[in-house]
């Protein structure tokens, strides 16, 4: 397969120095992620998936090893380039939504576009379009506190898509949502990834995610346990279904 790797993680370790003890959260992770894939990073809590996730997103620096995004080593980037990367290349979705509480839904979506230098009118137009896309037309002037959890996460999805990123990083996007809304958000992400060829990487322990994933990376105890492709997965989930 000649597909391009959008993310490449090589030999990444991460230690947290807690004063008396040093915790090795990641113990050498190697991972390659192809463009346009829908990847789920699965693993029990404490396995280091969120840490790995922060490394990929450029939110944290590895103790050793390298993270490449579009074949650029992000450790080599200065503050400006890193900000640019976060702004243009990566869209973040968080478990706790993290919308800016003092801004309306539309303003939340247009903020990354403002950072990217989009003129205001164009940003507003695109913001409205994105809100419509996630099924929130008519709610643009609502503050996050006036929206339900599912709606807030939809705004967050729209915000993540604002600058047409190559990667969407979703850290437990369904963690704070009920079953139905969670499924809607997953469906939305899947649809975006298919239509716009965006690479979606989500850290999760939500088994609903498995059905839409092209690839699942299992993390256990700071190492990659196994990587499963779609075909193998159907068997596993089938097995699970039988077991129930």
């Amino acid at each position, binding site marked *: 397969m000649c597909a391009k790797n959008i993310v490449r993680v090589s030999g990444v370790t991460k230690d947290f120095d807690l004063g008396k003890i040093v915790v090795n959260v990641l113990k050498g992770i190697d991972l390659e992620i192809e463009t346009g894939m829908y990847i789920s990073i699965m693993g029990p809590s404490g396995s280091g998936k969120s840490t790995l996730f922060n490394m990929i997103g450029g939110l944290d620096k590895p103790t050793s090893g390298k993270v490449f995004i579009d074949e650029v080593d992000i450790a080599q980037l200065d503050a400006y380039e890193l900000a640019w990367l976060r702004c243009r290349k990566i869209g973040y979705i968080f478990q706790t939504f993290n919308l800016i509480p*003092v801004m309306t839904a539309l303003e939340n979506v247009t903020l990354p576009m403002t950072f990217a230098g989009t003129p205001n009118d164009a940003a507003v137009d695109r913001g409205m379009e994105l809100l419509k896309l996630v099924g929130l037309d008519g709610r643009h002037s609502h503050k996050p506190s006036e929206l339900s959890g599912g709606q807030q996460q939809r705004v967050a999805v729209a915000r993540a898509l604002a600058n047409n990123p190559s990667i969407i990083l979703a850290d437990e996007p369904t963690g704070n949502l009920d079953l139905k809304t969670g499924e809607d958000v997953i469906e939305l992400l899947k649809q975006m990834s298919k239509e716009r060829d965006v690479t979606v990487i989500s850290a999760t322990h939500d088994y609903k995610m498995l059905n839409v994933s092209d690839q699942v990376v299992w993390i256990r105890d700071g190492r990659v346990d196994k990587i499963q492709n779609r075909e193998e997965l159907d068997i596993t989930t089938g097995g699970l279904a039988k077991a129930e």
Partner: protein
Amino acid sequence: MKRLVALPFSKSLEIAYKSIRVRFFRSLITTLSLVLAVSFLCYTQTSNNYAESMLLSGGQQVIEQLQAIGYDVNVGDTSLTASPKQRWLIFLSLLVCIVGIINAQLMSVTERFREIGTMKCLGALDRFIVRIFILEAGFQGLAGAASGAILGAFVAIMSGLFRFGLRSFSLLIWTDIFTTVLFAVLIGTGLSLLGVLYPALLAARMQPVEAMRVDQ
């Protein structure tokens, strides 16, 4: 392509303004200490201006009157300066005020850790964050200092009228009083900006991942 992120000044103004409006009550409390300190500063200075106007206009009788109130004047003096005690009091009140501002702004930053972290994840640079906080403090400082200065000057003029009688009103040197008010506004705004500097830098330097780890 130039890999730069930008935040136009008008947009930062808008964000700062909205932040204040949303937390209006909190901003009001932060600003209140500034209002009090600046109005005290302006009150003492304007009172001195008032007495000085009197001194320049009158003769022996005025000097006796001023001495009776507690001013340290002698025959032949043409200007009045704040007494050391007054200066000390002003200094203390401004000091208390700035400590109050730093405290309130630190709290405001802590409250907004997650918001700041989110903005940084969306591509905000450190200086965007600093700029927003400084603009907010500028607004608060300007509004607080202006209302404090006007309040102080008003009270000083009223008490002057009460002391020296209505006749004295026409003798006032208004340019001096305006200079005093302007000076008080500048000092107040300066204090507000000085008070926000450390909290703003603290907020801006924070790594996004730390900000996200904060529970809410």
